[in-house]
């Protein structure tokens, strides 16, 4: 999973392809879902729609709307079945706003206040799924608030604040929150045990630094050489 701020870059093949090479790499890696981040929005409506069509995984946001018309830009959530469990993954897009502030306009988009949006969708998916994961681009302080204020979320995979956070419960009964740094220098790994009713009974994890001791995957190296114009 990816918690957003992934598709745009200041220069190079990511910029020139408007994030297409990132989606190609994510398809190769077998991602299951991604949340749209605040820093993905400068790509604009047309390019983002192309990226969403190319992705073999859902790109989600429950609080990103199109300014003209007010409709949601992406699917708010996806539900996946696994071993008899139904797992809901909700996407949230970040912005500079704090909780309770009015929606903020970003170009052709409006990012709606995340906590009320999360409340609404957690309630909606709780009737359809027994495990709820929030793929959140709103940043760690808001993730902690969401965990405190909204029951029913099992896991929050966060982004935007570029925090290195191994899986942690912010409050005794709150969601397990994790975040994996930035720039692909780390990958978050979390092992979670659920009981038959979908409650988290145990979890552990780490942020793994993708240091040189991990050898390159041959297929990915070939792909990187191709997009960087290397022989």
């Amino acid at each position, binding site marked *: 999973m990816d918690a957003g701020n992934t598709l745009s870059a200041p220069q190079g093949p990511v910029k020139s392809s408007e994030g297409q090479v990132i989606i190609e790499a994510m398809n190769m890696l077998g991602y299951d879902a991604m949340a749209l981040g605040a*820093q993905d929005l400068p790509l604009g409506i047309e390019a983002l729609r192309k990226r969403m069509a190319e992705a073999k995984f859902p790109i989600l946001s429950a609080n990103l709307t199109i300014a003209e018309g007010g409709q949601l830009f992406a699917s708010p959530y996806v539900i996946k079945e696994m071993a008899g469990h139904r797992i809901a993954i909700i996407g949230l897009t970040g912005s500079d706003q704090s909780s309770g502030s009015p929606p903020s306009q970003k170009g052709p988009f409006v990012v709606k206040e995340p906590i009320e949006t999360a409340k609404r969708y957690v309630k909606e998916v709780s009737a359809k799924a027994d495990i709820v994961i929030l793929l959140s681009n709103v940043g760690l302080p808001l993730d902690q608030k969401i965990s405190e204020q909204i029951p029913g979320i099992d896991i929050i995979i966060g982004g935007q604040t570029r925090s290195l956070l191994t899986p942690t419960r912010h409050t005794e009964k709150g969601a397990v929150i994790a975040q994996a740094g930035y720039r692909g220098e780390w990958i978050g790994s979390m*092992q979670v045990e*659920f009981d038959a009713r979908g409650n988290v009974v145990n979890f552990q994890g780490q942020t793994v630094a993708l240091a040189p001791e991990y050898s390159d995957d041959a297929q990915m190296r070939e792909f990187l050489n191709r997009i960087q114009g290397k022989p």
Partner: protein
Amino acid sequence: MRAFRRYLLWSGALIALSTLWLAGCAAQGLMVAPKPTPAAPSPIAQQAPSPTPTPGPLSLLLLHTNDTAGELEPCG
């Protein structure tokens, strides 16, 4: 011999009469094959669907990234 010939005559006459009678019945629609009656619903089909089996415990390995923009840029 005569008795045998008489037997043949009577048998032939009976067969001919039976054939004529059957043809007459068929013409009047009396011999239409009965329509197949719909099969009685299976007692299994009438039962309420069995409840979905309760899922067991689940062990999930989640791998995640964020804010990766720029990681594919050439170094230096």
